[in-house]
């Protein structure tokens, strides 16, 4: 269990993390989500006492990180994959970490085997591919058989097979009752892995919710209607007991009614429709909307703060594993979700 209390980090003028209070619980994978520069890595560095908080505290099972005896036996972390001396062999890299925390030498072989690096154990890590470096970093995190694991963007730069491997590893670790805290800036990735979500933007907490709740709240599919006779259409819908929301650009959005039913209703009343389209938005869009105001580094061509255009059936990433993992049901997106979030 990790508890953050009012965690704040200021770099000069820049407030990188702003009063973050939340709890990361054992037995589940907690996704730590935020756009680039949101403060995810900074928060994780403060959890490991690498960066000193400006205010606030982090407690690991009730203790400060630096009070832990042999911290690698309590917390294992993968920060960036290249946080190692390239001239040292994989085996020796892990050995010096193991020795510093009184972890038996035999454990080094074990974790090398777990991550599949036994064959290159004696090779210097300088020559490793991105994926191999990532695996070695993960071996370092697993070394002390810790109850708490932290991974900062572990799937960055990995091929689909590597992504699949890490995803299953994290789920297995959580299933063993461990605390698994993993950062990402991809909602689609988190939807497949995480049971709980902590979303931050510009250092501030935006959401702290279970994945199931997030999907439920953001999966309201709806039908979009456009008609030259908008007033009469509204009356007809009202008469049939169907609530419709008028959007800024003059569309109607209808919840919980099939498009077929709406089409038949319009036909019965001889209403001209210019559009009748079922809409579903991806969770990615819900996430983008949630963090829109806090995104620092916009791409100039497509500001994510603009009108989100729902795209049907875009909720699963193209690299979804064959087993589907914890893939969400067809996610939809509700116009009023932002109010529900109270953000």
């Amino acid at each position, binding site marked *: 269990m990790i508890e953050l209390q009012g965690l704040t980090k200021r770099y000069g003028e820049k407030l990188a993390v702003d009063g973050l209070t939340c709890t990361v619980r054992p037995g589940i994978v907690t996704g730590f989500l935020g756009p680039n520069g949101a403060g995810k890595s900074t928060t994780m560095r403060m959890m490991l006492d690498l960066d000193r908080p400006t205010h606030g505290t982090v407690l690991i099972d009730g203790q400060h990180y630096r009070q832990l005896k042999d911290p690698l036996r309590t917390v294992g972390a993968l920060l960036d994959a290249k946080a190692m001396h390239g001239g040292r062999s994989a085996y020796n890299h892990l050995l010096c*970490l193991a020795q510093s925390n009184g972890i038996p030498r035999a454990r080094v072989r074990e974790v090398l085997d777990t991550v599949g690096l036994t064959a290159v154990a004696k090779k210097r890590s300088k020559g490793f591919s991105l994926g191999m470096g990532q695996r070695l970093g993960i071996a370092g995190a697993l070394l002390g058989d810790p109850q708490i694991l932290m991974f900062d963007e572990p799937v960055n730069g990995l091929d689909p097979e590597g992504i699949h491997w890490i995803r299953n590893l994290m789920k297995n670790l959580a299933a063993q009752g461990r605390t698994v805290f993993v950062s990402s800036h991809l909602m689609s990735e988190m939807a497949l892995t995480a049971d709980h979500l902590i979303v931050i933007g510009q250092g501030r907490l935006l959401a702290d919710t279970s994945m199931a709740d997030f999907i439920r709240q953001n999966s309201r599919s709806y039908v979009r209607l456009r008609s030259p006779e908008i007033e009469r259409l509204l009356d007809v819908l009202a008469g049939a007991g169907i609530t419709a929301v008028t959007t800024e650009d003059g569309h109607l959005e209808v919840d919980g009614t099939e498009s077929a039913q709406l089409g038949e209703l319009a036909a019965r009343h001889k209403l001209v429709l210019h559009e009748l389209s079922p809409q579903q938005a991806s969770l990615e869009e819900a996430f983008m909307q949630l963090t829109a105001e806090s995104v620092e580094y916009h791409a100039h061509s497509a500001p994510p703060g603009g009108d989100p255009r729902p795209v049907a059936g875009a909720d699963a990433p193209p690299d979804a594993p064959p087993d589907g993992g914890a893939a969400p049901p067809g996610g939809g997106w509700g116009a009023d979700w932002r109010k529900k979030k109270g953000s």
Partner: protein
Amino acid sequence: MAVVGQVLQSEWTKIKSVRSTVWTLGLALVVTVALGALISAFTRSNFKEMPLSERVNFDPTFTSFAGMGLGQLAMIVFGVLVVSNEYSTGMIRTSLAAVPQRATFLFSKITVATFTAFVIAMVTSFVSFFVGQAMLGSHRTSIGDAHVLRAVIGGGLYMTLIAVFSMGVAAMLRSPMLSLGILMPFFFIISSILGAVKATKKVAQYLPDQAGHKVMQVVTVGDDAPYGPWGGFAIMVLWVVVALAGGYAVLKRHDA
């Protein structure tokens, strides 16, 4: 709390498992011995042409250490790399996550590196002495003569402290390039220029290397330094302590 014994063992593994350590220390030994032997041989063949004052004040022990001026640069590289490698590779974050007590981490690392440097430095000093004396032929001295053993041990201590001083500076600056860019020219050129110029000589004799040289000398005629061999050595130790304290202060304060 990290257990110091474990951290020492871990730092020893770190030192052993990278090539730069082996080759910098090896280079320090080879360069110092070879250059000392060369200069000693050269001195013997040119002894008669040397001015009288130099012949009277001739210090065979210090002459056999003539390679240390260059060899110490390899010791500097060793001291700098051992510490700043952590920063330049990003290993520092992994290391401090494993050992969050920064004093334990830094001083364990420095203890192990110092011990390693000490062993090599002592071997270098003794080998330089014996090889140098052999080259000097009839102008040689013997380890049993007055102050000679002290000077040879002093040579090993001097080389060790140069490495430790570099570790402290590297811990302060955190960058290998910056540390080497300051230390190498300083010890190789600037210090000797300051020591040769009349106006700066009085101050320069308190610089770490010039103060430290005193303990390696047997003949000190015409030397007006206001300290003896161990006095000079103490001044050098003081520099080292300040550098280490500075290095620790930076590590303690700084985000990793």
